[in-house]
């Protein structure tokens, strides 16, 4: 690529670069001044020395383009021209902040001003940027996404996964690596043997360039070229912009790890001052003109700081707002509603695989925003490991039924970003054991983006995951409790084909991320059961009484519902009438539905296959015990998985997972 110099850039652009650079430099200095003078108190990661990157990148973008950045993001946000009162308000935790003060410096989000998302998780941004770019590509918006990250982030797997996927799908993304010479407090030679970080790009089949990140003209030139490539459909570029961080990793960092002479030399050549001198020397600006621009910026910053300081802290009522779309209160428990029955009418006999396939098929036909993402899910790769998605790519195309690399963080990251940008993705995790592989994207991003963005963004998507059977410690785990522990997620686990249809439709329509759990055991041993031919939806957060009885309540979900029904049949022979309550949804939990049954039977057993210790049964037992203390005729019993990995040997697996006999024994003991 041709090197861009002052001679090839018009005067207006040079002045705009100066303005953006000074806006960044002065905003950063103002924040540090407020922190050192005790005027403010919050965590902050300075950008002194990196101003040219934020300025050069910002001017290479159009208004419609989106930026993803990091906790060291002031330059990217302020360079983009984000309104400063909302920005400072967010740093200060005030109600007028961009996210109502609930995200802080690490979580700046202003999508309508071109900043999609910021994250405090090193390396997570590129995965999500891919999703925003995927939506832009599929919806034909012509947008380009720039994702900023530090040199330290090039060590984490997320970034490598993201680069691979972006190149594979020719996504309109520009990876901007802001190499400020320090990964927190460790220099480059302390964490890699790579001599040039941009060399990493070649390994993923994308161009990689290194540019002087202290020169805004050079940055602007390289990024503009990369943006043009991305917009033309030619795929991503890796731009490494090299600079030197002139302050500590965080405000207050004494920088004891930095060579004093090296730092002094870098500060003497500070990029903001150097570019100012350059424009005056070349006659682009006079001293007076430069000072006038600086005074104007200072006034804008000062006014914004004062407005932010004067603003109120968010009210207590704000605590639960933006956890879920449909709730301003604690969303872990469902709001009691009237029961919705599975509709009457003509039925067909379907196994669980066919029921889910039919539901996805019909949903894709009626809603073009639905996109499936996963390993081997397209027909070219067999239509899914157990053929849940068979036929769908043939019908809707490989664009909407996307085979992915074996990279779960990439899958969930792409789904999260795409959901933020208007699609309704259905990513498949395959085995639920892989939840951990993608947990950062699920727990830190998909579940929190609504809160982090002050309710302006959300990640409506349905993550499908299968609980295996007979597949040993790493392919048979039920980990629903992990997802239940993350506010912002909904968790659903159907026990029948008909329930799967109704609940999956509810997830696909929901405005928040849902984890939809499928049982391998029911895929193969669930049999074909009647499902209404007409499509229908069952509400999330509503139990279903699968068998009525007056003596004891067994609460369960998923596969174990069938064990509970078998136990109830055995116990009926002994004159004990068991009521089997299928939760269907774990979050939001229909506690009222459980209480209604237990008020009648006065005895409760909670049964699930996941580990008993700290499992969902503990939450249910505690909640019921709190509500019905004094009304219970026996202590609440839990029947659940042993505190062991799930063993491969069938004889041991039977001991690990409760079956009908364990439930019968628990009921008899009461």
């Amino acid at each position, binding site marked *: 690529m041709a090197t861009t110099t002052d001679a090839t850039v018009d005067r207006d652009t040079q002045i705009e670069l100066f303005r953006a650079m000074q806006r960044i430099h002065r905003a950063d200095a103002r924040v540090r*001044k407020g*922190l050192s003078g005790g005027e403010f*108190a919050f*965590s902050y990661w300075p950008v002194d020395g990196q101003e040219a990157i934020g300025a050069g990148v910002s001017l290479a973008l159009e208004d419609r383009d989106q930026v993803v950045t990091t906790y060291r993001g002031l330059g990217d946000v302020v360079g983009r021209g984000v309104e400063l009162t909302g920005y400072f308000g967010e740093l200060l935790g005030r109600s007028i902040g961009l996210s109502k003060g609930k995200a802080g410096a690490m979580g700046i989000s202003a999508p309508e001003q071109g900043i999609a998302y910021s994250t405090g998780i090193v390396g997570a941004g590129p995965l999500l940027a891919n999703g925003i770019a995927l939506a832009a590509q599929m919806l034909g918006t012509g947008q380009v996404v720039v994702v900023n990250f530090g040199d330290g982030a090039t060590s984490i797997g997320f970034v490598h996964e993201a680069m691979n996927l972006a190149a594979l799908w020719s996504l309109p993304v520009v990876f901007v690596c802001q190499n400020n010479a320090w990964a927190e407090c460790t220099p480059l030679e302390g964490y890699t043997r790579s001599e040039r970080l941009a060399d990493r790009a070649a390994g993923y089949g994308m161009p990689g360039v290194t540019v002087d990140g202290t020169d805004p003209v050079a940055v602007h030139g390289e990024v503009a070229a990369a943006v043009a490539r991305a917009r033309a459909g030619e795929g991503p570029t890796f731009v490494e912009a090299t600079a030197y961080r002139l302050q500590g990793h965080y405000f*207050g960092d004494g920088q004891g790890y930095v060579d004093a002479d090296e730092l002094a030399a870098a500060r003497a050549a500070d990029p903001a001052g150097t570019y100012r001198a350059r424009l005056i020397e070349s006659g682009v600006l006079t001293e007076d003109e430069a000072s006038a621009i600086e005074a104007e910026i200072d006034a804008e910053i000062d006014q914004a700081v004062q407005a932010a300081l004067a603003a109120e802290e968010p009210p207590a009522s704000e605590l639960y707002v933006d956890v879920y779309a449909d709730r301003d209160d604690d969303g872990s428990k469902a709001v009691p509603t009237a029961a919705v029955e599975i509709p009457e009418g003509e039925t067909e006999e379907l196994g669980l695989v066919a029921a889910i396939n039919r539901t996805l098929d019909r949903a894709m036909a009626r809603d073009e925003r639905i996109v499936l993402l996963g390993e081997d899910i397209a027909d070219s790769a067999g239509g899914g490991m157990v053929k849940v998605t068979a036929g769908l790519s043939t019908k809707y195309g490989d664009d909407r039924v996307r085979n992915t690399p074996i990279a779960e963080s990439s899958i969930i990251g792409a789904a999260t970003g795409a959901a933020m940008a208007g699609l309704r993705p259905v990513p498949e995790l395959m085995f639920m054991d892989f939840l951990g592989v993608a947990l950062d994207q699920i727990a830190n991003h998909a579940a929190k983006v609504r809160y982090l963005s002050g309710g302006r963004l959300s990640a409506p998507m349905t993550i499908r995951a299968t609980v295996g059977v007979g597949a040993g410690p790493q392919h048979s785990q039920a980990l629903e409790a992990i997802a239940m522990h993350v506010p912002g997620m909904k968790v659903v686990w159907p026990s029948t084909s008909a329930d799967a249809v109704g609940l999956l439709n509810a997830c696909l329509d929901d405005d928040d991320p849902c984890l939809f759990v499928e049982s391998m055991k029911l895929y193969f041993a669930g049999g074909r059961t009647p499902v209404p031919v007409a499509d229908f939806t069952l509400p999330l957060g509503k139990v279903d009484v699968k068998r009525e009885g007056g003596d004891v309540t067994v609460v369960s979900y998923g596969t174990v519902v069938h064990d509970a029904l078998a136990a109830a049949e055995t116990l009926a022979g002994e004159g004990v009438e068991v009521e089997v309550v299928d939760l269907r949804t774990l979050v939001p939990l229909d506690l009222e539905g459980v209480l209604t049954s237990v008020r009648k039977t006065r005895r409760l057993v909670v049964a699930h296959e996941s580990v008993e210790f700290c499992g969902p049964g503990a939450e249910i037992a505690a909640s019921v015990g709190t509500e019905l203390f004094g009304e219970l005729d026996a202590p609440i019993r839990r029947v659940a998985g042993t505190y062991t990995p799930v063993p491969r040997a069938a004889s041991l697996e039977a001991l690990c997972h409760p079956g009908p006999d364990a439930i019968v024994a628990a009921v008899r003991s009461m």
Partner: protein
Amino acid sequence: MAEVRLPKPGDAITEATIVALVVADGAHVDEGAPLYEIETDKVEMAIDAPASGTVRWHVSEGEVHDVGTLVAEID
């Protein structure tokens, strides 16, 4: 008149020791010039003057103060 308050150089930090007062009481300081130094369990920090003017100290070297304490006024 600008107030100089003891900064909070980390989420968990509640107090700091005044290690050195670089500018004498009643002397003039320029904005951005070194003003004083503090030490906490986490860091040692040199703090620059947030404004230009005459310094009036409210603390002495060796004292331990809570974050947010009025350290000096610059007039």
